[in-house]
Each structure stands twice: as C-alpha cells, then as structure tokens.
C-alpha cells in the first residue's frame, strides 16, 4: 500500500535543529524512530504530518545507562536493545520480560520504548513495567526540559502529556531499593505476536510490599494503588489474594472489543493477578520460573 499523504522528510544531526523544526511545525511534525506505528498511520491516513522528523541521527537520544539507581533509556533505544542488555535483565527483569512480549523480532529491531509510550495505545506492553518502576518521561523543546511521571503521561487512549513542540529524549526508571521479584503476565489469543487482551505486572519486594500495574484493562495503563494497599504488609496467601482481586476489579474498566469481551477480561485479570504475584514472589526467593517464560493464552 503506498503512502498517499505528502510530507517532507528531514533527519537533523543536532538537537537544536530538531527542536527548531518541532517548534515551527508543532502538530504538523511527527517524530520518526522505528516507524512501526507511524508508517502504518501514514498508510492509513491517520497521521497527516507536513514534516516527518527522523530522530535516529540524534546522539543525545541513544544509550542505556544505569547510574545511581536510575536507568536512563534514550528515546532511540529499541526493544531488541533492551532485550540484549544483560544489565536490564539483571536489574529490571520486569521491563526485560515485558519487552520480550512486544510484537516480534522484526518489529522489536526497530520499535523503541519511547515510541511505544508515545503511541500510547491502552495495550502498550512496556507501560505496566514503567509504572511499576516509577518511570519518568524526559521531554525537551525550545522552551526547555520537563520530567513527567509515568502516572501523568497517559492522558487517554492514544493521548499523552507530550506538547506539540516537544520530543521525548529519554525514559528513566528507578531501581527498587530492595531486592525484587516480578512478573509480566500478558493475555493474548495465541503465543507469538499478538496485542495484549490484558496485561498485569506484579512486583514483590522482600519486605512484603508489592506493586501492581495493568495495560489493556482500562483506557490508559496505570498502577493499582488499592490492589497494592490490600497486599502490602502481608505474605501472599489465599485470603490476601482474594482481597487484592476484589480491589483490582474496582480499579479496572476494560472495554469489550474484537479481541475479547469485557467480562472475559475482568475474569482473566483476577487469574493473571494471582499468577503474576505468585510468580513474582517465587522469583524473589529464586524459586520461580525463568524470566521470559511465563505465558497465558
């Protein structure tokens, strides 16, 4: 399918030039990194930019670095780079596990984490992990830099807090201070590549505190504070889990669509919460399954 829209293509070599284009064109400029969403949108005429700004030559946007308990993921970093990083696997295993569930190798070789959260579909696989690791999104424009907590980033389906003149430069994750085990449970119709019908991320810390987040089970991916409150301070057991599941149901508002009904999503979300928590706790004590091997479909 050819792209029928007409637009200019620029590939700035330095950040000032890129920011200038965005300040000039605003909504009419679209950033291109992996293009795995943007090109589809261009083909379907869902995106009608006047200029496509290829950001892959901007050195400032590259690199994965862990410093002082903060992992900085440049906006150009692809899911394949995240999966290939031994440091991400060792220190942020939940992000590593979630990255493995994104589409397929041929897409992950191009698709970026920053692009995933800029597309901001409710089923964004990276989002629950980012929520659980208290991520912040770093943006830049000619007016200056901003840091946006991931909880304030998604403002609606396919909508974010990014301003028209801004670009995302990096995403930063905080390493939990204590040891943790975690699990991303993605419900899909089959193994291999599929969008999530629902996704639950659970993280367990050694002091019996927990973090839970979801995707595709509400209009935007989000943390589940009430579910966490029901769990915190307790060892995982049947009674605690029942309370947590009840709290979770209050925090979810899934739609019914071509991939599954609302009722199915709500039913499976509870099962996924249980399995994700059990797996996270088992992994915390080194008794669990290897990261990247949990599947539910």
């Amino acid at each position, binding site marked *: *399918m*050819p*792209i*029928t*829209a*007409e*637009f*200019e*293509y620029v590939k700035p070599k330095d950040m000032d030039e890129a920011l200038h284009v965005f300040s000039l064109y605003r909504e009419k400029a679209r950033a*291109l990194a*992996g*293009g*795995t969403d943007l*090109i*589809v949108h*261009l*083909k379907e005429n869902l995106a009608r930019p006047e200029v*496509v700004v*290829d950001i*892959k030559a901007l050195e400032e946007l590259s690199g994965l670095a862990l410093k002082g308990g903060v992992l900085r993921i440049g906006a150009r970093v692809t899911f*394949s780079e995240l999966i290939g990083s031994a440091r991400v696997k060792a220190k942020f295993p939940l992000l590593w596990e979630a990255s493995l569930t994104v*589409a*397929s*190798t*041929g*897409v992950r*070789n*191009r698709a970026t984490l920053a692009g995933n959260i800029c597309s901001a579909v409710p089923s964004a696989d990276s989002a629950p992990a980012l929520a659980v690791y208290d991520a912040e999104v770093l943006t830049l424009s000619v007016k200056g830099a901003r840091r946006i907590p991931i909880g304030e980033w998604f403002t609606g389906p396919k909508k974010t807090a990014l301003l028209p003149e801004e670009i995302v430069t990096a995403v930063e994750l905080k390493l939990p201070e204590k040891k943790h085990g975690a699990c991303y449970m993605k419900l899909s119709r089959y*193994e*291999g*590549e599929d969008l999530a019908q629902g996704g639950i991320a659970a993280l367990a810390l050694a002091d019996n505190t927990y973090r839970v987040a979801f995707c595709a089970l509400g209009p935007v991916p989000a943390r589940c504070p009430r579910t966490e409150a029901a769990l915190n301070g307790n060892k995982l057991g049947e009674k605690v889990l029942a309370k947590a599941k009840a709290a979770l149901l209050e925090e979810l508002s899934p739609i019914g669509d071509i991939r599954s009904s609302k009722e199915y999503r709500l039913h499976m979300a509870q099962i996924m919460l249980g399995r994700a928590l059990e797996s996270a706790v088992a992994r915390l004590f080194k008794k669990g399954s290897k990261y990247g091997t949990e599947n539910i479909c």
Partner: protein
Amino acid sequence: MKSHHIHFSLNGEKVSLHVEPSDVLLDVLRNKLGIKSPKVGCDRGDCGTCTVLIDGKTVRSCLALAVEADGAEIVTLEGANTRKWTQKLQRKFHEKNAFQCGFCAPGVILSATELLEKNSRPSSHDIKEAIAGNLCRCTGYEPIVAAIEETVKGK
C-alpha cells in the same frame, strides 16, 4: 515533496537512486529495483513476508521509508550468498519441504539467518521465538522448525 538522493548497499552492490519521502522501502525494492523476494502481505508489519536484513537485523520493509535506507546495508534473499547461513537454510528448506506456496519463505529464512548469526546453537524455543513474526498458512510450522534445527546440526 522534496525528493532525496540516497545511497545504500543492496546485496553487496552499491545502489543510488532518487526517492520521495513517502516511498516505502518494500515498494522501492520491488518496483524500482526488481527485488521480488520480499512480498507484500499484510502491509502493516504483522505477517513478516516483507522481511529484509538491514545492517544484519530483520526489518519489516513495509514499515520503513525508503529514504531511511540511506547509508544502510540491505540484504534480501537474493543476496543469500553474502551470508553464512542463508544458503544452507535454503537447501534444508528445500530438502525438508518446509514450505508449500513459498510466500512466507524469504521472510522465514532471513529471520532464521538473523537468529543463527547471533546464536548458532538455538533451542527449539529460540527458533519459534525468532520466527514468531513470520506467518505461514501452509505448513503448520513443524517442517520449518525442523529445517532450521537440521541446518544447525549440519545434517
């Protein structure tokens, strides 16, 4: 639209041509450069039949602008002789009858090429994961996985 003059390496040969910003890499390969192994399938990144190697990595050529290829090294199945594993895979696919209509085969073989270049002793899970983005509607995948496994063993 301002057209761009781009240069890249295609199957080991230098190519330079003018492209429009909206030209999709897959269409340019097929319609301007006569490279027919990458196919137009879903045309939105789901099926994998348009797979090419860009700088050694599998990429959906239906999801790349041609202008992005400037300076890149592109290998398609036509350039199988430039990679260590590709022709071995082709022979084994043929031997094992690992395709029927053949529409998915170029993409599958390039995905397997990328896998074997990174990991020459893949598990069956690694193989399935590597080709998870290449849809085959004929074989049920079993002969494909077997062909890749046997390529590794050099049987």
